């Protein structure tokens, strides 16, 4: 197998991870404040999906959405600045880590209400039906969100009207501090799709190649008028639910398994098998850290959001 694609994938995984590790440093240093949710370990899903998102598509993510903003092409500098509450942030400091929004990049935003993005994605798909685009709406949410009424309503709504929505569940097996398999009667979440009359499948979210391929099918079906699909991408978060979570609830053997499966480990193995030299592999991490150090330095140097503007943008 040619190593160029996995190398590009690893480069992207590292950009996301280096971004978030830098965010963690900034949070622990007190430069950023508040609750920040990292998706370290889950990057394979966003990396695999990034090339599928077309120019008129719309992505709806959750508070754990930094990587999705990067996948949509938002400059890290503007994301750092937003998380740091700077005037130069992508939302001028109004959104923060949990509410990044960049419609100019097809990123219709994070959401801090579990499951709330799914019905909104239905609306984006509906708009596409009337505005002459071939828009696909991608809504990304966690395993826990599968138990939220809004997600159920959205799935039926999309299926009933054959809307071009891709429901992407990033199953990291934990909803905050509670295991998903204790909160459902059927832990194979993708199986619910059948009940709505749409296709569904479970994939390895750690493998960008597989995500590209299988999620790509869902995009294609949606774009060609075939309606929604539910894709359950199995993954893991290697860190706490938020920065500061003591993360003491993991099951025996879980961390070892996660370390073996996570995308950096998986892609590194793949590259070695393809005969890519180690220093080329290591270069992906180095380059990503350099990029994120530079981007965060620019953001840190920017002025805080101006309090005089706090009341702006409430009405038209």
């Amino acid at each position, binding site marked *: 197998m040619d190593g160029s694609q996995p190398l590009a994938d690893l480069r992207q995984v590292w950009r996301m991870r280096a971004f978030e590790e830098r965010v963690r440093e900034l949070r622990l240093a007190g430069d950023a404040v508040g609750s920040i949710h990292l998706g370290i370990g889950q990057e394979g899903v966003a990396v695999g999906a990034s090339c599928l998102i077309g120019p008129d598509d719309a992505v709806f993510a959750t*508070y754990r959405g930094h990587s999705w903003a990067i996948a949509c092409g938002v400059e890290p500098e503007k994301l750092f600045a937003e998380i740091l509450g700077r005037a130069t942030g992508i939302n001028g400091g*109004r959104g923060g880590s949990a*509410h990044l929004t960049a419609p100019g990049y097809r990123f219709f935003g994070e959401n801090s209400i579990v499951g709330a993005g799914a019905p909104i994605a239905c609306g984006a798909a509906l708009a596409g039906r009337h505005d002459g685009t071939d828009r696909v709406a991608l809504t990304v949410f966690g395993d826990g969100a599968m138990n*939220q009424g809004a997600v159920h309503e959205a799935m039926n709504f999309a299926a009933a009207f054959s809307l071009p929505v891709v429901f992407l569940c990033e199953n990291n097996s934990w909803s905050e501090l*509670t295991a998903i398999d204790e909160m459902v009667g059927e832990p194979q979440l993708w199986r619910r799709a059948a009940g709505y009359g749409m296709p569904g499948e479970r994939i390895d979210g750690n493998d960008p190649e597989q995500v590209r391929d299988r999620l790509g099918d869902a995009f294609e079906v949606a774009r060609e008028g075939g309606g929604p699909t539910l894709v359950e991408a199995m993954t893991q978060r290697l860190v706490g639910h938020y920065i500061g979570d003591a993360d003491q609830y993991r099951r025996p053997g879980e961390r070892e398994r996660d370390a073996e499966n996570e995308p950096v480990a998986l892609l590194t193995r793949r590259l070695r098998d393809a005969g890519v030299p180690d220093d080329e592999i290591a270069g992906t991490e180095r380059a990503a850290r350099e990029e994120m150090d530079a981007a965060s330095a620019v953001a840190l140097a920017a002025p*805080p*959001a101006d309090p005089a503007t*706090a009341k702006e943008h409430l009405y038209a």
Partner: protein
Amino acid sequence: MPDTSVAARPEARELTYGEAVNAALRRCLDERPDTLLYGEDIAKPGGVFGVTRGLRRDFGDRVFDTPISESAILGSAVGAAMLGRRPIVEIMWVDFSLVAFDQVVNQLANVRYVSRGELTAPVTIRTQQGSAPGACAQHSQSLEALFLHVPGLRVCMPWTAQDAYDLLVAAVASDDPVLVIENRTLYPAGKGPVALGGPVQTPGGLRVRREGSDATVVTWGAMTARVLAAAAGLADEGISLEVLETVWLNPFPTDEIVASATRTGALAVVHEANVTGGFGAEVVARVAGRGVPLRVPPLRLGLPDTRVPAAPSLVAGLLPGPDAVAGSVRDWLRT
């Protein structure tokens, strides 16, 4: 978590606000076998703020974790209460109650009324609210006024650790549905002696936090600390404020507020919720409706009518802190 069990006789323990909530829950679970305690992450993990730690271990399957399904949490509480249980449920952030508002407004609040009292729903909903540095727009709101607009629902907002204990015990004992709105910034707040095991209070009443003669200031929740700090500063300037903390908002101690405002001739209401449609408007209307003669027009202070931004520099310009409260009150009384 320190030992929060109840001794045979009332006794004082050094507890934080969060530990006082734990002690109240422990007492209710202990004394009332009809209680159930459930919500997201509250049992095995002991709550995202650690408030319910140890209760699953000690009370078994009457304490359990739920899916992220607020409609099912609140709706099942209504049903279990109709059939004789006394559910205590947690909605992690008040903002999340909005995905299940139907179960509160159309369902819970109607149970007793439409059945002419044949059915009751003594549900206690614990939640928490308020702004904290860096919290996003969907995790910062103060929504008590939404619930206070709903007849049939009791609402309280403890600020001290003692009230966090007493109000919750009173809520669970009440045969009405009660919403207890706590504040996450207070959970770890300064340990102090909390009397456990005292007589169960009935909903209602207020706390006179400071006596004064120049103006009556009504406040509740975490805002009380800011108002008291402002009042202490103003006292040095010769301005004497009477600070009334209305821990119960429904039932509301209208008579006591009217009496105080009549005495001081000036009324201000300060809350963390935004001003328009805030409960402060109701307080002012009640006092005005009684024809209380006031020297100066009433003052309402709260968050300006805007969404809550994430950046600390933006929030700082919005939420009135002690200095802003003192400044507003000073200007107001000077007019």
